[in-house]
């Protein structure tokens, strides 16, 4: 048995003999054990140091050094890639975060402006739910979103506000030299640059009006009160004509008003110049309702029926001349 095993270990067996032996070993435990013993003792002897191994060692060592070099290069490339990946991640995230933050802060500066031309009116709802009606030739400047501690808008012309209630964020309307602060309320602002006064009427809630011209003076209105500002002076009175606010539905009402005042309003609403050759007709008072969409010609014609005067229109200069 040993003979055959030895021959096998030395590689001296014929192919068929080798195969037979291997098959035999599969079944024969004792044969297996004998082989294992022999194999391991033999292998043990291979571990003896001999002189020629030094050359082999040197060869191996060179190969080893090459491997180490290659490994180091790989490591450098991999860590470079990792750094690149991290850098990219940092850059990308910085970009997105900055954009998000920046977008939010520019939301405060991002103001929209709505201009309503002559003969028209508009209604819009602001980001917080506040409703605004704008009369003819009026401009509203407002932010897309109300960020910050206050809700601020700027108005030129005439606007009616139904402010959504927010106790934490007061609503401020700026117009010419006035600033009006409310919490939740309904009020009307009449503030045309060409007019002789600024008027604010409070219908509901409470309103604080202050003027840049007299900063120490702050007037607080109660419902159904109005303030008229002429220059430095502020007059508080009662609302005379509550139908007046129907303008937001497109109905102009005048209650016992002088033609002078009516004409001034019509000029503003319709962007037309009205020249009165005979000033006596100014003081006649009128009461009536007109639809905005009737147009100025129709309105003047109806007024004409009460007190006769002649109307002359010049389309080129956009002037209407009234004569007795």
């Amino acid at each position, binding site marked *: 048995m040993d003979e055959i095993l030895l021959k096998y270990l030395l590689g001296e067996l014929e192919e068929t003999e080798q195969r037979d032996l291997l098959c035999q070993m599969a079944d024969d435990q004792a044969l297996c054990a004998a082989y294992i013993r022999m194999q391991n003792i033999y292998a043990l002897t*291979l571990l*003896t140091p001999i002189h020629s191994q030094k050359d082999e060692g040197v060869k191996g060592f060179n190969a080893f050094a090459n*491997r180490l070099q290659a490994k180091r290069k790989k490591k450098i490339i991999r860590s470079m890639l990792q750094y690149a990946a991290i850098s990219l991640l940092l850059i990308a995230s910085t970009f997105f975060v900055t954009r998000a933050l920046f977008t939010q802060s520019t939301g405060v500066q991002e103001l929209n402006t709505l201009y309503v031309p002559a003969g028209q009116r508009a209604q819009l709802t602001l980001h917080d739910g506040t409703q605004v009606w704008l009369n003819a030739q009026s401009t509203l400047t407002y932010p897309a979103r109300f960020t910050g501690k206050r809700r601020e808008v700027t108005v030129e012309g005439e606007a009616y506000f139904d402010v959504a209630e927010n106790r934490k964020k007061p609503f401020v309307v700026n117009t010419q030299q006035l600033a009006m602060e409310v919490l939740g309320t309904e009020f009307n602002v009449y503030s045309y640059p060409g007019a002789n006064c600024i008027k604010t009427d409070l219908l509901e809630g409470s309103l604080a009006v202050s003027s840049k011209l007299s900063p120490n003076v702050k007037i607080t209105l109660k419902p159904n009160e109005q303030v008229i500002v002429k220059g430095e002076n502020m007059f508080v009175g009662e609302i005379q004509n509550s139908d007046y606010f129907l303008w937001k539905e497109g109905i102009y009402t005048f209650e016992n008003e002088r033609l002078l005042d009516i004409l001034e309003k019509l000029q503003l609403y319709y962007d037309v110049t009205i020249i009165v050759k005979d000033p006596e007709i100014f003081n006649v008072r009128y009461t009536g309702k007109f639809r905005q969409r009737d147009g100025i010609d129709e309105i003047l014609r109806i007024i004409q029926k009460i007190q006769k005067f002649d109307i002359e229109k010049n389309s080129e200069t956009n002037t209407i001349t009234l004569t007795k």
Partner: protein
Amino acid sequence: MKISSQHTGQFEEIYLTHYARMKRFAAEYLLCEEDAENIVQDVFMELWEQQFVLMSHTNLFAYLFTATKNRCLDFLRHKTIVRRTAEMLMDEQNLQLKMKLQSLEAFDEKIFSEPNIESIVQKAIETLPEKCRTIFVMSKLEGKKQKAIAAELNLSIHTVESQMAIAHRKLKEALQDYIPLLIFLLI
């Protein structure tokens, strides 16, 4: 070729002392010298990366041997599985490798905690008759082919073969006492 490190000199010495022996041992079980080379290089790479081992190990030989043995075992196990799925179970090389695997599994590295084991093995080789020993060394330790040995020593191949047989028998006898140490009793 230089590798920069504080322990380069020490490492190189260890490398040169052990490389060839480990490679030979591995090649015996793997049946392929290239595979053996790769495995031993991996072993030394690991040693290099864990430099504290250089410092702390009193029995560096045992460490290197165990590392080599374990990698060979993994290799053989993987190879026998792979071959089983690719070819016939009774494939000859597969059977050979299986036997090698079994032998290696049974090889107990604890034998190297025996302080004198290396000198014992060496002595066993030295007790071989001169011609026998020369042939044994040339064949198995220097890796020379039997034909080349015959030509070099001016002998017939048959003589070389028989001398090899004698060498093996004598070595087995000499190391018999250590067999229990050498082999796990798996049965």
